[in-house]
């Protein structure tokens, strides 16, 4: 039984929503790993197990018109934004009915209709793109914001610094959300990064940098909400560092042998799903039976989606030459 920690609680409906989302992300990622090992998903996959509160907490504050760019560890962001699980799984399996018609794959989850402007396979490249989306919001005075997710490793690439600087000088409504999961690929952060907190880097760009417990979805929600309100009011960008942990390896079959002994076990005690569940049980909002029923329903749905996707056709070969240019 996890210790029940106290923060300002979200409304019960919001708690139920983000709990279910985190459970869906967890269950989908577990199944995706299986599909990869069965060779039904090719290339590589990057799982966000352990980081679900980041996706669910941020997505819960978004409003219609807001946009998100994210990383190749982006399945959680996509699910939290409401992307169709069918479109996602079919995309990863390279099927014609995938979100990107099978042209994107695991690292390029995109749903323009939801404002999900794309997961990116180039570290840091999604930050300048979000700056551009925020520029549109500013020029058109929409009060929308752009959110961009990235890892702590991306804070060492030039695009990060250029994007924060540009967003700050133009005072754009963009939230730079760093999911600091402590490892850039296989390298622990302290071997690549000379500052203890990525949020410290905000000072160089004259914007607030805040550190948030990324395992606590309610804290994530409150802190990101406050930054978003600020951005919508024209007060400019914020760098938000969500301290989190990748329960799995970097990708594919990486077993993460580079982790110090006991580190994973310590972080497993701070499982974001367990933390919220414990609070909801303490507040009488869910019980173990209901939780297990919910989990069963989620897993059955994912099973059904996977079976459906397996039967879906691959794209016709002539589609290789389509969508390179807009014709018209």
């Amino acid at each position, binding site marked *: 039984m996890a210790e029940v920690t106290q923060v300002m609680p979200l409304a019960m409906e919001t708690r139920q929503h983000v709990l279910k989302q985190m459970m869906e992300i967890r269950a989908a990622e577990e199944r995706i790993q299986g599909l990869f090992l069965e060779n039904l998903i090719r290339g590589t996959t990057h799982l966000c197990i352990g980081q679900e509160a980041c996706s669910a907490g941020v997505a819960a504050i978004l409003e219609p018109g807001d946009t998100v760019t994210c990383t190749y560890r982006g399945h959680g962001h996509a699910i939290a934004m409401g992307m169709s699980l069918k479109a996602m799984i079919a995309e990863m399996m390279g099927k014609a009915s995938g979100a990107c*018609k099978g042209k994107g794959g695991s690292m390029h989850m*995109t*749903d323009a209709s939801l404002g999900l402007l794309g997961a990116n396979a180039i570290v840091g490249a999604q930050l*300048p793109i979000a700056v551009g*989306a925020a520029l*549109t919001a500013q020029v*058109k005075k929409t009060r929308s914001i752009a959110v961009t997710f990235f890892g702590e490793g991306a804070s060492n690439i030039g695009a990060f610094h250029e994007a924060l600087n540009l967003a700050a*000088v133009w005072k754009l409504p963009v939230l730079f959300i760093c999911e600091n999961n402590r490892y850039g690929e296989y390298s622990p952060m302290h071997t690549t990064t000379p500052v203890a907190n990525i949020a410290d880097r905000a000072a160089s760009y004259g914007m607030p940098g805040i550190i948030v417990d990324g395992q606590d979805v309610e804290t994530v929600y409150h802190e990101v909400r406050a930054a978003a309100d600020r951005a919508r009011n024209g007060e400019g960008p914020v760098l938000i560092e969500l301290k989190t942990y990748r329960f799995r390896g970097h990708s594919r079959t990486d077993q993460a042998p580079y982790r110090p002994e006991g580190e994973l076990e310590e972080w497993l005690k701070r499982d974001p799903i367990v933390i919220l569940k414990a609070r909801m049980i303490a507040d009488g909002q869910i019980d173990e039976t209901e939780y297990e029923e919910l989990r069963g329903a989620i897993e059955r749905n994912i099973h059904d989606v996977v079976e459906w996707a397996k039967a879906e056709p691959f794209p016709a070969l002539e589609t290789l030459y389509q969508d390179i240019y807009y014709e018209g």
Partner: protein
Amino acid sequence: MTYREAATKALVDAMRADENVVLFGEDVGIAGGVFKVTPGLYEEFGGSRVRDTPISEQAFIGAALGAAITGLRPIAELMFADFIPVAMDQIVNQIAKYRYMSGGQFVVPLTIRAAQGAGAGFGTQHSQCAESWLMNIPGLRIVVPGTVADMYGLLRSAIEENNPVIVLEHKVLYNFAEDVPDQLTHVPIGKAIVRRVGKDVTVVATQLVMQRSLEAAEILAQEGIDVEVIDLRTMAPLDEGTILTSLAKTHRLIVVEEAPHAGGWGGDIVSMAADKGIYWLDAPVKRVNMGGALVAYSPPLEDEVVPNVKRISQAIRDLMSE
């Protein structure tokens, strides 16, 4: 009107026609641009639509993409085309692929302007031509205006195009003046043009070396050689038909390019001629270009590296004697 004035007029007319058109780049606002293409725009359209950027090519080229897929029609000025590699990830991996890898979810109506070419004494890192670097990237349109009317017309078309367009302006041509019609018009992307009709040999060229090829043609006319000069105007997509039609008539082909030989765009023209026009050819196909050299600073070295009238003329004479 000069080539520079035509570029300015295209920008002004485009911004007056569509409030979604925005312009940004280093010093394009209050300073009016390093090449003085954007004077008066900040004053007319204001600081929301005309913005100076930090020296951050990755950021503002990436921002052009983000703006384009969310409802603006941005124009990003990259100043010297030699700076394109600084933003190459955004151009190669993002802008060119964003529509494709999303399965067609996005339209990417953005324009990147850059000044390219040798001949102004800027040295090795400020004098290159970029089209050959970019032609290996499906997803981009690339235009290379070589006349005043084309500078206007291609830039207008680029800004209205619903795909990413790289507009490579030749910096030596900025002061080039021509009489133009009162009503300048759009020039379609993807169409080459025969600048000089001739019957003996086809020269395919662009921009500065296209102008020099026209000069060479006048000299050779005195010697009884009738040269047809084709200005490609668009590098992607290439207009093969105009070249093949000319080749069917002249039976000889020379490609004049301001680029190093290896991987240069002239190779694509030669390949296309060998594939689709070989039975019309009466002589080998020749390329006049920079060989394996780089652009040097010293005036006589810089004058030598880019094909000049003398080199172009001699190459044509040599081919006619084959």
